[in-house]
């Protein structure tokens, strides 16, 4: 805020008004999306947008330090922490729409509406026609002013904040730490056990090398064109995220062969072509059959 607004004023600049109405709309839409989106990731991103808008509002209100802290701490650290936990818990997990309490949603919306009206009525009744502005308070610099207050008037609160942060860090570590109940087996022990049991002594086959999707979720093909389930990570197998492209691959190969034959101007004997197409269809059928069996 400029020094001109240091004295009591009743309106802000037009630019700030335009900024408020445009960004305020964005903030409210972001907040509504936060509570209405079914997937937690979308909620988190909407909330991050709202928080960035709030940072701009802090800057507009003369809280330069808080505006930067809002971006660094909230949208930078806290929202990323949220996203980490969302990823841990599962991105695809959408909220169930089943209501456990009948009519709870409408009642909640009604209560929210009443609460909002109450708050707005309270603000409307307060006599806030003029405002002082921060021109004088920020004259020595916003950060300097805050520092002077933090280390004099609020020094005890500041010290206690340090204790709180340490407690929170220790608490988070204690809550998420898991003690190993058994010793992890070493690589040597695992290899010795493999040899002793006689199962899969050589390394497991590598997954398919098609550079699409995740590539590691595509099983490698055995010489006869069928897929090797062993080539895919056990976790992906357990989740059922194995992509079988052997049918497609065989069909593509057959098409390629056919094209090259045509390009070379040589006609293939009818029987071989039909057999190739049939083989591809048979392989995909076979893959479907095996997928069904795995489930």
């Amino acid at each position: 805020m400029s020094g001109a607004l240091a004295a009591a004023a009743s309106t802000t600049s037009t630019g700030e008004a335009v900024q408020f109405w445009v960004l305020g709309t964005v903030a409210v839409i972001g907040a509504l999306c936060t509570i209405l989106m079914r997937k937690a990731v979308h909620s988190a991103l909407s909330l991050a947008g709202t928080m960035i808008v709030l940072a701009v509002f802090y800057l507009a209100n003369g809280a330069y330090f808080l505006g930067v802290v809002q971006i660094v701490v909230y949208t930078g650290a806290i929202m990323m922490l949220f996203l980490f936990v969302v990823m841990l818990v599962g991105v695809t997990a959408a909220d169930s729409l089943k209501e456990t309490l009948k009519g709870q949603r409408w009642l909640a919306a009604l209560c929210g509406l009443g609460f909002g009206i109450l708050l707005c009525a309270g603000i409307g009744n307060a006599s806030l026609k003029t405002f002082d502005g921060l021109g004088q308070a920020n004259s020595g610099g916003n950060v300097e002013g805050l520092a002077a207050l933090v280390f004099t008037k609020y020094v005890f609160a500041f010290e206690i904040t340090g204790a709180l942060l340490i407690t929170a860090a220790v608490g988070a570590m204690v809550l998420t730490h898991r003690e190993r109940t058994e010793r992890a087996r070493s690589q040597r022990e695992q290899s010795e056990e493999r040899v002793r049991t006689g199962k899969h002594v050589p390394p497991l086959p590598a997954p398919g090398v098609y550079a699409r999707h995740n590539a590691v979720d595509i099983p490698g093909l055995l010489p006869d064109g069928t897929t090797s389930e062993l080539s895919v990570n056990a976790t992906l197998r357990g989740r059922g995220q194995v992509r079988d492209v052997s049918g497609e691959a065989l069909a593509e190969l057959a098409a390629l062969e056919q094209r090259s034959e045509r390009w070379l101007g040589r006609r293939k004997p009818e029987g071989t072509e039909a057999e190739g197409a049939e083989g591809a269809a048979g392989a995909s059928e076979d893959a479907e059959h095996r997928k069904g069996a795995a489930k």
Partner: protein
Amino acid sequence: MNPVNYLYLAALLFTIGAAGVVIRRNAIVLFMCVELMLNACNLAFVTFSRLHGNLDGQIIAFFTMVVAAAEVVVGLAIIVTVFRSRHSASVDDASLMKL
């Protein structure tokens, strides 16, 4: 425009956050709604600071941010622990004290 409009916006955001806490089931989204409410309070504090021409409001908003950061760390750790034991982040599923 009077800066009081910022207070109305803060009230609106706080209301949306409060409604979200009541409506949603996913513990992470509940937590985000709480954060939204804290942010709305911060906006109100910053606006009060401007209305009254001193920096006390900004100091309180600053402390709110610190407490919110500590709260998020512990709260998300609790959510992760509950998710590990119940394989669900829904608050409806966490209806028993002991699994």
